[in-house]
């Protein structure tokens, strides 16, 4: 221990490292590559992780969508091929029968799935945009970023079937002047005046909507387009700890029973389980993290073993030198410690250089992928991982140093001196 804090020891070690450049290089390259791969891989997988998170940040992670299709099995007196229409009343039943459901936001739409879009006009300008009838709950499932000064549809809008709307960024650009504040302004949707209450920000890659969608209160939509209690589809968010696959099954089973569909009819309802896909992606990315951890540790291990090997060879080469040192008064523990500290120093030095290069590489990759669609963001390696890997290297470095160190002192000085 005393030796560890002695400047003389370090002079000896740095001299031995400096004067044996090839050996130093060879020993360090293994650990360097090991830690570099480790940092690079785990940083990259963290980057993917962050990237996926970002892709899904605008929508509840365990959400799913359900809609009616045509039946494929005759049931309860109905022929096959019957079109199923979801109703607003389904929501209440679903809440009651599937307790894992946190929020249901029924939606109606005009302008996708083959229906004609709304014709939106303002003064002389006009355009065709998809129009959605929405509940305020929708904002809880799919976070809509609304520009400052505006808002999303609220409960009063629904109760009073107000003629208000939230427009998209593109709609704003196309219908309003650049310096004009759209909030409070009026547009016509299929010839009915609506007041703009908000502009939603479009997040690329997030969700399925576009920057030109117009949201109006569900109740207003119903009046405007005479849709009665019909619902185009349900957007459903389950609680965080719910099993989304089971929730999806339960929802479909409930819908089948409400709509008199055979319990075996798989085609009567369509659904899209975002939660399941999200879980798969997250599973993939945590698999990546785990893999990079394993590969990284294996690489570090291989590198450290390499150091041990080369030090062992170098101890054999230096048998005579070590014999001379012992004739001059080096005690076995001094010789042993010197070799262990050498191993440790080489390991740590290589490790730190590897970490620095790994971090630089991640920075470069980050800079190159910035702004792109590729789901990759902020590829950092958590500090505990870095510290953990350094600790691992200290432990391994000492352990691996023990072997050549033990070998060095196991030879009697007289035999070491006789060595040619």
């Amino acid at each position: 221990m005393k030796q560890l804090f002695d400047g003389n020891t370090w002079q000896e070690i740095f001299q031995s490292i400096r004067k044996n450049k090839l050996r130093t290089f060879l020993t360090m390259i293994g650990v360097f590559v090991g830690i570099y791969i480790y940092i690079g891989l785990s940083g990259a997988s963290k980057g993917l992780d962050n990237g996926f998170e970002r892709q899904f940040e605008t929508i509840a992670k365990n959400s799913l969508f359900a809609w009616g299709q045509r039946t494929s099995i005759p049931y309860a007196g109905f022929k096959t091929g019957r079109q199923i229409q979801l109703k607003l009343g389904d929501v209440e039943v679903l809440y009651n029968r599937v307790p894992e459901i946190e929020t249901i936001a029924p939606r109606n739409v005009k302008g996708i799935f083959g229906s004609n879009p709304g014709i939106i006009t303002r003064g002389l300008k006009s355009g065709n945009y998809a129009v959605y009838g929405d509940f305020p709950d929708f904002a809880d499932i799919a976070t809509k970023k609304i520009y400052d000064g505006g808002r999303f549809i609220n409960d009063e809008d629904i109760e009073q079937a107000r003629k208000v709307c939230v427009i998209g960024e593109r709609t704003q650009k196309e219908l309003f002047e650049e310096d004009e504040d759209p909030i409070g302004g009026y547009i016509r949707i299929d010839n009915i005046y609506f007041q703009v209450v908000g502009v939603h920000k479009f997040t690329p890659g997030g969700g399925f909507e576009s920057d030109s969608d117009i949201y109006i209160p569900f109740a207003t939509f119903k009046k405007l387009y005479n849709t009665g209690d019909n619902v185009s589809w349900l957007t459903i968010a389950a609680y965080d700890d719910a099993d989304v696959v089971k929730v999806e099954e339960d929802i479909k089973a409930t819908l089948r029973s409400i709509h008199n569909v055979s319990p075996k009819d798989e085609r009567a309802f369509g659904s899209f389980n975002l939660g399941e896909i999200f879980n798969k992606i997250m599973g993939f990315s945590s698999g990546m993290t785990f893999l990079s951890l394993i590969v990284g540790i294996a690489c570090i291990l291989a590198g450290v073993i390499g150091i041990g090997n080369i030090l062992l060879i170098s101890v054999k080469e230096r048998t005579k030198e070590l014999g001379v040192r012992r004739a001059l008064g080096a005690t076995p523990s001094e010789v042993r410690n010197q070799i262990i500290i050498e191993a440790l120093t080489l390991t740590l030095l290589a490790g730190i250089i590897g970490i620095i290069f790994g971090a630089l590489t991640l920075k470069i990759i980050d800079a190159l992928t910035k702004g792109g669609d590729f789901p990759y963001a902020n590829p950092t390696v958590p500090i505990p991982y870095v510290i953990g890997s350094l600790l691992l290297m200290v432990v391994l470095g000492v352990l691996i140093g023990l072997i050549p160190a033990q070998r060095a002192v196991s030879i009697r000085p007289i035999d070491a001196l006789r060595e040619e």
Partner: protein
Amino acid sequence: MIEIKDLHKSYKMGSNSLHVLKGINFSVEDGELVAIMGSSGSGKSTLLNILGMLDEADEGEYTLDNVPIKNLSETKAAQYRNKFLGFVFQSFNLINYKSAMENVALPLYYQRVARKERTEKALQYLERVGLREWATHLPSELSGGQKQRVAIARAMAAEPKVLLADEPTGALDSTTSYEVMDLIQKINDEGNTILVVTHEEDIAHMCKRIVHLKDGVIVEDKKVKQVRAAEYVQ
């Protein structure tokens, strides 16, 4: 200074055992310069290694400066070597990646002497062997004689009680050998005790006493009139 009684040493090789030293009795006074002679295989190096605590006798007593040397741990032996003994080898045994000065300073490093003082002392001893201006050179840049002088400086740097030299001139031509012997004589003149193993009659006569080994015993032990090596060095 050195006291040896009935020293035995044999080497075991498989089932055979080779009895090399068969009862050596001998003592060396302070300030002596002793040549140990004998034919090849007579046990000269074996004796010197035992004296140097690099090896241990099977039997007998060895006292160095009134300290009994017996059953030393390797750590203790290393400390004694460092404090009491200086070694000069036939093949110089300098550390090839260290400069002359660093080589000379090495025993001081194991004495935990501070770097500055180490360097000072090393330069001082290099001065004494006439190699002050070679201080920063690596061994590979030195001639054989120069290497041996660096080795002698290294052996002397720790100010040992006894200098042990195993064929210090064995790898040198005669002119260089005399230069090295001249140096050894000068060191002896200052009162240092020195043992020199040698094959060569002329080198032995540059010492003050010659001990002859044969078949593991001392067959002759005589004082001689010292021939000054300086006479041969111009």
